[in-house]
Structure formats: structure tokens, C-alpha cells
């Protein structure tokens, strides 16, 4: 039995060497890389996997994105920044695409534009008194699709595709027919629209 003692002691020492470091590791905090991975995962969950639209007003560029990928890029036209003074006292309109986060409220096929008063004032025409009068309705200007946002803003088509890439609109975002069809197809109700 005595001759086995050194072997038993060495086996015990080996076991201690094997077990103690692992015990020490189990008590230690997870490594920075693991924390980074978990934080990244948390951030990915916050960002979600939904499609979103980004509009750059200075470059007049619209991007449809999902997570880290870009699904579509288009040249658009955004607000001119002009101010129109109306006939009545203190009646002014500011044609600006705001820096804001919108969401798509309605997707419309062949949208009909109900012309607001400024559209008549701008052309020196008399605006209809009643908001539902027939000559306010225009079925050709907005193109084949409309993505309606909050506060009467929308992403729609244009009659003047050669003016895309400029700040010329009354606040809405204009796209050409193909890009508008792509944006319409890729987006859905509630899709976020980030304007900067």
C-alpha cells in the first residue's frame, strides 16, 4: 500500500491542478468579447429586421434598408424650403421636408391629390371655398403609387422626372416611376421613414 502513496499523491495533485483553474474561471466575469457579442445582439434586437426607409435631404437620395443591407437606392426630390405668403393676413406656407421619423400610414394605388389652398395661391388662382369641391381633385400628379405619411406628407411619383435630385417640392418626397414601384413593393404599413 505504501508504495502506491506517491502515485496517489501525484494523482491528487493533478486533479487539483485541473479543477482549481476551471473553478476560478467559473467565478470570473465573462470576457469583454462575450459582453460585446451580447450587447451587439441586444442592439440588433432593438433595431429589428424590418425594412426602413432613409431619406437624405441634402443629397436628395432615398434608401430602402433592412438591418445592415441596402435593398434599393433612388434619387428623389425633397422640399424647397420656400415660404409662400397667402392672401389672408398671417397665411403662410413653408415648403420644407422636415427632419423627422415618420411611419407609413397608408399605401395607395393611383392616388388622387386633393389640392390644398396653397396650390391655388401659388398659381394666382381663386381657391375653392369648400374643401371637397371637384376642382381640388387631381388624379394625375402623384403617379401610380402613394406612400402616405403623417401630417399630409407622402412619398409619391412626379410629372417631372428630370427635376429629381433637387430641392423643389412642397414638402413631399418625389420619386420616378420605377423607384416608386420598388419602394411601394418593399415597404409595408408601419415602415419607418427616417428623414435627415
Amino acid at each position, binding site marked *: 500500500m505504501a508504495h502506491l502513496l506517491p502515485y496517489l499523491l501525484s494523482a491528487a495533485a493533478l486533479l487539483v491542478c485541473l479543477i482549481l483553474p476551471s473553478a476560478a474561471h467559473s467565478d470570473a466575469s465573462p470576457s469583454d468579447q462575450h459582453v460585446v457579442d451580447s450587447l451587439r445582439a441586444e442592439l440588433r434586437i432593438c*433595431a429589428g429586421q424590418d425594412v426602413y426607409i432613409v431619406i437624405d435631404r441634402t443629397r436628395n437620395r432615398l434608401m430602402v434598408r433592412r438591418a445592415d443591407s441596402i435593398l434599393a437606392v433612388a434619387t428623389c426630390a425633397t422640399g424647397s424650403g420656400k415660404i409662400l405668403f397667402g392672401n389672408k393676413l398671417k397665411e403662410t406656407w413653408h415648403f420644407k421636408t422636415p427632419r423627422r421619423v415618420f411611419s407609413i400610414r397608408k399605401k395607395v394605388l393611383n392616388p388622387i391629390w386633393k389640392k390644398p389652398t396653397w396650390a391655388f395661391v401659388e398659381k394666382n388662382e381663386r381657391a375653392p371655398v369648400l374643401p371637397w369641391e371637384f376642382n381640388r381633385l387631381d388624379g394625375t400628379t402623384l403617379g401610380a403609387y402613394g406612400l402616405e405619411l403623417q401630417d399630409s406628407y407622402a412619398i409619391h411619383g412626379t410629372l417631372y422626372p428630370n427635376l429629381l435630385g433637387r430641392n423643389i417640392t412642397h414638402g413631399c418626397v418625389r420619386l420616378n416611376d420605377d423607384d416608386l414601384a420598388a419602394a411601394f413593393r418593399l415597404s409595408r404599413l408601419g415602415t419607418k421613414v427616417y428623414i435627415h
Partner: protein
Amino acid sequence: MIVILLTSFALACTAEASEPPPEILRIALQHELDIVATDREKYYLIVDLFSGVIHLKAGGRTLLTTPIEGASTSLDQPVARADFERSIPPHSALQAFKSSRRLADRRLPLDFVGRLIEGPRKSDRLYFPPSLLIESGLANALPEIMHVKVSGQDLKSISSAMKLGLPAILIQPVAP
């Protein structure tokens, strides 16, 4: 075989060098998550000097990525958070602007056809007190302020997203 291994190792090192080390990235990500947890629609900037890019983000989603063309001086901390205060016009001196709330030579907001002339410009400087300035040129650099240079068009795009209090997270290499 050895050459292939060395090449792949060198490539891996190069790829790793473009990303901040985990101990720095962890702090930056925690800052970012704090911002996202507060408001998912709030825009914020990640100024990453390791990767050499500025990300404009909201709710963890990337809106814009622009390359950094240069940076002047370095702060002490590897990760710093600063909130946007104002856009400094190109014709005003930085020192004079730091003490004044409103410029005497401020232009009228409208031109003769009623078009707004105030707004983002390629030559603006975005000031995040106390010590971060994003700009398109490095002229009149002050030693106590960290200057980050981007192209004029990129600056205009970033500037159009700015709003008072918009946070920026700066990630940078710091010498030991």
C-alpha cells in the same frame, strides 16, 4: 504553406485593426444601448476613429455612414460621449463663438425669392462641447478641441440631421 499562413494572419490582423478592441467597444455599445433605450427615434452619431467612419444612427439602425478624412488631436478617454450644441458658421472664429449665444453677423433667413438660406452648409462646423468638433476643413484648429474632418457633402448630410442635444459617441485609440 507558411507564406499562406503568414498572409492570412496579416490579413486577420489588418481586419482586427479596423475594429476597436473589445474592452473599448463594450463601453461604446453600452453608451449606444443607453441612447436607444431612452428613445428609439432619436438620432445619434458614432464617431469611430478605429474604423475611420462616422455612423448616423437611430434606434440601432444605420442611416448614413461617412468616411473620416482626418482627426487633429486626441482626448484622454478611449470612449467619450458629447451632446450637440450648435453649428458654427464658417466665417466666425471659434474662440469668439464659445462665449456668445448669438452671432452679430447672422444672415437673414430668407433670400430675395423667399428661399431659406439658413440650413446645413458644407463649410459648417458641428460643435459637441466640451471638446469635439466635426468639420470639413482643419483650419484654425484649437489644441484643446478634437477636430474630426469629413468631406463637405458628408458634413452637410450629417448637419441636416443635427438637433440640439443630439448625442455623439467618440471611439478613439489612446496611447497607454
